[in-house]
């Protein structure tokens, strides 16, 4: 993307609020319907398939936000029905906290209701134009009213239902059939509305949207029924609700002139100095004075009286004053463990070989807004390997399905040289090829988008750097996994020699010569010259697995060494502690086994079991060794430097590796192509 795009992106990034207010202003002169017609594109209703998706998205995002606010594990049911003339009915119900009766009309029947201008908080709702816009679009295109049911929790509460249409002349809800009734649930909301649309499958479909939503919201239980009546269920992968994001005051550096004017004019502060101090974060009296002096604005001015020029000067002054970066503890990233769980849960059908340990970066800021980047990579299995990798983009736990090419995520991926991480990529640029899914989540109090459509994250250098850093870490994990696979296949090859070929050779030569079959121990030891560690996993029950590591000493020396694994500590059971080689496990779940006096040509075994929700977060190949030269061990890596080793008495012995240079044994006759001519004719 060009830098000019970045700038426009920055402005556009000011968010739905500016356009929202434009929209509200516009009501004075033209009807909302007209405005809609003119601005369909930027509002996201530019195609029928997208309009339908938008309707679902607004309702689902609202439901997830509401549940998160109330710390409820969401259960969301989505249903699409097809009627004549491309009319589709969208039904979404949730078990959220519900909406009080009084507020229902405005939430669904009034554009921009509930946009609290000064609330800066990581939320799904900041994307898109709001559920009321979809309801209105539905009414404009089909003439059908929306049907809403909601009930809030409480002994005395009843459920309310009503039909709502948006009065497009003055942006007010019009209610019919408003009545209370007894609903069979404790709390929740149901919304049904009809919209002109087109139902599609594939990458930009409702199914894809919900599937991806399930990945980044592993706590949500989502069902979906498509127009043909087929029903899917995305069960929740965890019962841990996300940490509620904190609301913070805006940071001055993110302000744009329009925002600042609206903000100032709606402020109740008595003067502009206290307006700056009290309604922004990180602004002290000293800083407020400094800004106002530079801007040439009298600190005693009422914020309601600020002119456009005043605001412009204040913004200019903000750029010159050094202000502390915004607080970053207000964000709620998904976290590496839950990303992995979400990915595993949803991608399981593809049976991937590997989930690279996801990465959650530390928060950074861009334009006065804190943001955090998270990334994960899924590799192998039945993921198609012949095309470009699949990129999953998310902003504040909402999937982005459109405008992939314009997005910072795509740019960061394209700018990385993936060849060194084991993926194919032409010329080391562009979207890489291979059986991989790359997932990136950007969470922020205000995600900067390239345009009002909010489909692509703007390519600010700060954001690109963070995405790149997160991807590098994931990619490094992927590469080390691929290396492991390669090493393992080499070991496997040696194993084939000693287990299959050599015994055959011994039997066959003995038979030919009519002599006894020779013992192979010493030959095998010479060929392998490794300590070989082979993992195996046995699924005992759902969420219960037994891990067994078979350790073969194929060297001619007695071996002593340590084995280490980082286990989900709440998942271990007695099997771990009763293993004779087991020594200890620390508070973080780092377990340690000691292998003593393993004789040449002798095999030993360690086992443990993992049970419960976190059992599948441990990958069996993540086993480490200490106290032995890594060059003579196959199947485990040396302990990483940051493992925090204490009290290990085993000393490392010097040993140089016997590298086999004869792996590439030449078969030069073939290479010479001497008989090519025969093939040619």
């Amino acid at each position, binding site marked *: 993307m060009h830098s000019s795009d970045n700038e426009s992106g920055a402005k556009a990034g000011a968010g739905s609020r500016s356009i929202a207010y434009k929209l509200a202003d516009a009501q004075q002169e033209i009807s909302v319907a007209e405005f809609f017609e003119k601005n369909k594109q930027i509002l996201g209703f530019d195609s029928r398939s997208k309009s339908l998706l938008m309707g679902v998205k607004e309702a689902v995002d609202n439901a997830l936000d509401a549940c998160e606010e109330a710390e409820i594990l969401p259960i969301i049911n989505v249903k699409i029905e097809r009627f004549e003339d491309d009319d589709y009915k969208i039904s979404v119900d949730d078990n959220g906290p519900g909406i009080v009766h009084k507020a229902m009309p405005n939430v669904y029947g009034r554009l921009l209701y509930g946009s609290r201008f000064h609330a800066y908080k990581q939320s799904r709702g900041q994307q898109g134009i709001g559920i009321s816009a979809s309801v209105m679009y539905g009414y404009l295109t089909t003439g059908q009213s929306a049907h809403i049911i909601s009930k809030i929790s409480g002994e005395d509460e009843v459920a309310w239902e009503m039909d709502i249409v948006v009065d497009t002349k003055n942006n007010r809800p019009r209610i019919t059939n408003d009545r209370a009734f007894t609903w069979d649930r404790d709390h929740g909301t149901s919304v049904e509305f009809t919209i002109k649309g087109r139902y599609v499958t594939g990458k930009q479909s409702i199914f894809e949207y919900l599937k991806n939503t399930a990945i980044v919201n592993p706590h949500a239980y989502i069902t979906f029924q498509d127009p043909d009546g087929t029903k899917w269920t995305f069960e929740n992968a965890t019962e841990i609700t996300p940490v509620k994001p904190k609301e913070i005051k805006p940071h001055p550096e993110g302000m744009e002139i329009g925002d600042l004017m609206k903000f100032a004019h709606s402020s109740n502060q008595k003067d502009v100095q206290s307006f700056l101090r009290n309604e922004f974060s990180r602004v002290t009296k000293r800083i407020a004075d400094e800004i106002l002096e530079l801007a040439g604005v009298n600190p005693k001015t009422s914020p309601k009286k600020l002119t456009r020029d005043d605001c412009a000067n204040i913004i200019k002054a903000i750029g010159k004053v050094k202000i502390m970066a915004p607080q970053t503890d207000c964000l709620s990233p998904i976290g590496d463990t839950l990303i992995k769980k979400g990915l595993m849960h949803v991608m399981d059908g593809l049976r991937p070989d590997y989930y690279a340990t996801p990465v959650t970066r530390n928060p950074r800021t861009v334009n006065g807004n804190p943001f955090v980047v998270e990334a994960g990579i899924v590799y192998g299995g039945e993921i198609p390997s012949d095309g470009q990798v699949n990129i999953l983009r998310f902003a504040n736990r909402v999937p982005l399905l459109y405008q992939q090419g314009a997005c910072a995520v795509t740019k960061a991926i394209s700018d990385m040289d993936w060849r060194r991480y084991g993926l194919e990529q032409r010329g080391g640029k562009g979207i890489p090829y291979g059986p991989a899914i790359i997932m990136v989540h950007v969470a922020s109090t205000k995600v900067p988008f390239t345009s009002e459509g909010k489909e692509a994250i703007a390519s600010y250098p700060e954001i690109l750097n963070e995405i790149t850093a997160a991807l590098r870490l994931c990619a490094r994990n992927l590469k080390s996994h691929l290396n492991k696979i390669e090493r393992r296949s080499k070991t496997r*090859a*040696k194993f084939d*020699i000693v287990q299959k*070929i050599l015994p055959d050779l011994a039997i066959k*030569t003995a038979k030919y010569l009519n002599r006894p079959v020779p013992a192979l121990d010493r*030959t095998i030891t010479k060929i392998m010259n490794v300590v070989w560690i082979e993992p195996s996993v046995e699924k005992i029950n759902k969420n219960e697995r037994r891990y067994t590591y078979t350790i073969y000493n194929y060297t001619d020396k007695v071996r002593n060494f340590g084995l280490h694994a980082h286990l989900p500590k709440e998942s271990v059971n007695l099997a771990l502690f009763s293993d004779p080689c087991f020594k200890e496990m620390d508070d973080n779940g780092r377990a340690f086994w000691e292998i003593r006096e393993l004789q040449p040509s002798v095999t030993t075994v360690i086992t443990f079991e993992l049970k419960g929700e976190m059992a599948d977060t441990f990958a069996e190949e993540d086993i480490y060794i200490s106290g032995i030269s890594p060059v003579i061990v196959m199947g485990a890596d040396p302990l990483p430097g940051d493992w925090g080793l204490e009290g290990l008495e085993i000393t490392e012995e010097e040993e140089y590796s016997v590298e*086999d240079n004869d792996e590439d044994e*030449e078969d030069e006759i073939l290479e010479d192509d001497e008989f090519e*001519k025969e093939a040619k004719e």
Partner: protein
Amino acid sequence: MSDKNEGALNSLTGIVDGLYADLDKGNIPAMEVALRSKRNIEFNPGTGVWNYGSLTSARTAKTVKGAMMLLRTVYTADFIKGMLESNKSSTLREMYYISEGWNNAKFQTQDESVILAEDLEILTGYMREDFKLRPEEDGARIYGDLTLTELTRKGEKKKMNCIDDVGDSGYGIPYNVGPEKIEFKNCNAKFVIAIETGGMFDRLVENGFPERHDALLVHLKGQPTRGTRRFIKRLNEELGLPITVFTDGDPWSFRIYASVAYGAIKTAHISDYLATPAAQFIGITPSDILNYDLPTDKLTDKDKGALNAELSDPRFKDEFWENEIQAMIGMGKKAEQQALAKYGLDFVTDTYLPEKLTDMGIL
């Protein structure tokens, strides 16, 4: 069992014995075979042909490939032992199919079985015929005034003149062309033209070239088989006929000539037996392409690679070949021998060959 067969069997048993001893002593089984590469062929001034040099490649059980080779060697030795003991023989292709029952030692391609048979020849100093292995490929066709007898499978010596007693396509030689099978009786031909393509062979027959110039034609069929090369060598050594080779003008054809005259890299252990150092190259040479202004095709990337490989092939290390190869790289073109038809169907027999053969002092 003949002495040769007996010797071959003892030699094979020696190989198996060596591998057994390695295992018994707790060593890694291994054997060494001459490195079969252009890096390892040497000119033998005594015989005028190219043989393997002193470089060897180790087959060891340290690699899957090496271990597999050793296992196949033993299985093959055992199979040959069985054939020798029961007086049977098989084709290389049959052996490839028989290996289906060898479990891990099974050949993946027929090439593997051919290469292994050649390895055994190198290791033992015996020929594959001594192991009762034969190729299924048929040999060349010949046409010209040569009278010979062939010992048929029925045990009778059948006498034939290779013009009068054969049809247009000539006499097809068997895979075994040793003196016990084929005896030369009478020869009025004055020289031999070994021809790469069937089309050119037929052109010369149709134009009456063999009769007119007392030529004996041999159709090489691309890279000539062992039998064809052995047959040509016998014509040269026993009948004293000058040998000429007439091929396409492309890098692969140069290799055909090299295998006839110098010995092939693949069979350098038996070059003494197969190669005819006196054989001369008629063309098409790159100079012919220019001198006769022949229609050409562009060299492909593979062609270019082959030419460059030839520059580092010791067999082509002389002034003639270096100049011709460089010339071809320079012009970037190649030509088929049938491109001579540009000047009419008789041009090759009336003009091109007489001119070239006169230059060589044969006509």
